[in-house]
């Protein structure tokens, strides 16, 4: 099977991944929390959200490790979460961005990415793919392995 042509691949280190599971009614507070993060100059390089059948939603966000404390506090307070709230944090993660273009038009790209990473035992903490790029969140220690895996399936033009 031939390699898939890719425009670029890059990674952002020193990230933390925050995952929150909440009742749907709390979703209305999200915009103000996000605005508060903007005011503090906290960037969010990765965000995915989904709602399950019961109406509960799962939100996963990545931010720079150094900004995790602030972000955690913003969600804890903004959503009025008790200290025992289901707020999961994964430290020392890396965000890998694969930029197409046209990735979304090629069937099987996601399966090849996941297969290559699974074969090399790289844990995928979160993933998002649409249109022309795919973002992956993985543990920091897996980065060299993950890049080798991805280089097996993608052809990246020399800079």
């Amino acid at each position, binding site marked *: 099977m031939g390699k898939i042509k890719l425009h670029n691949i890059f990674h952002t280190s020193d990230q933390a991944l925050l995952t929150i599971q909440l009742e749907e009614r709390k979703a209305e507070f999200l*915009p103000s929390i996000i*605005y508060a993060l903007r005011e503090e100059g*906290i960037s969010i390089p990765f965000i995915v959200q989904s709602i399950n059948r019961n109406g509960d939603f799962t939100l996963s966000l990545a931010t720079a490790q150094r900004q995790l404390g602030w972000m955690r506090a913003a969600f804890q307070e903004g959503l009025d979460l008790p200290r025992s709230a289901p707020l999961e944090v994964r430290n020392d993660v890396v965000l890998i961005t694969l930029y197409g273009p046209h990735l979304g038009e090629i069937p099987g790209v996601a399966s090849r990415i996941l297969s290559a990473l*699974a074969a090399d035992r790289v844990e995928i903490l979160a993933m998002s793919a649409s249109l022309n790029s*795919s973002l992956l969140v993985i543990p920091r220690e897996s980065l060299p392995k993950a890049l080798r895996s991805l280089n097996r399936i993608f052809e990246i033009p020399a800079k």
Partner: protein
Amino acid sequence: MKKIKIAGLRHILDLSQVEFSPRPTQSHSPAMILARLAENGINVEFIVAHGRTDETMELVLGVKRNQIAATLGLLRGIKEEFGLEKVYSRDRVGMISLFPHGSRAAVIGNFLSAFRDAGVKLLTISFSLSAISGLLEESRIPDALNALSEYFELPG
């Protein structure tokens, strides 16, 4: 309120959303399931995956509506093999993608506010390098686009 300039806004109709979560012991399951879909010519327009602490992965896919029957048939056929306890689907879904210039936190805040103002439920949000995409009920796309136009300024 000052509108944020964006590079573009587009929407796609005729999608369906599928959700499932393979059992934890099958670490390769998501890859193998997506491979089966690809082998059968099913293109996934949209993917969101959340890893969980119990090592399962919750997967939400957006596929073209004319491929939903094939997708569900295939997933139901491999339910036992991959321990898919439940496969959920939702029809008449559309996707709105917004292409920002920068200032992502502001853009995400406005994106969420627009949907909240319009009373439109965002079923799933995904982030890619150049766009923020959301799945929503197809019938609410005009309302969502109107609300977004209050927060964002399109070129031209």
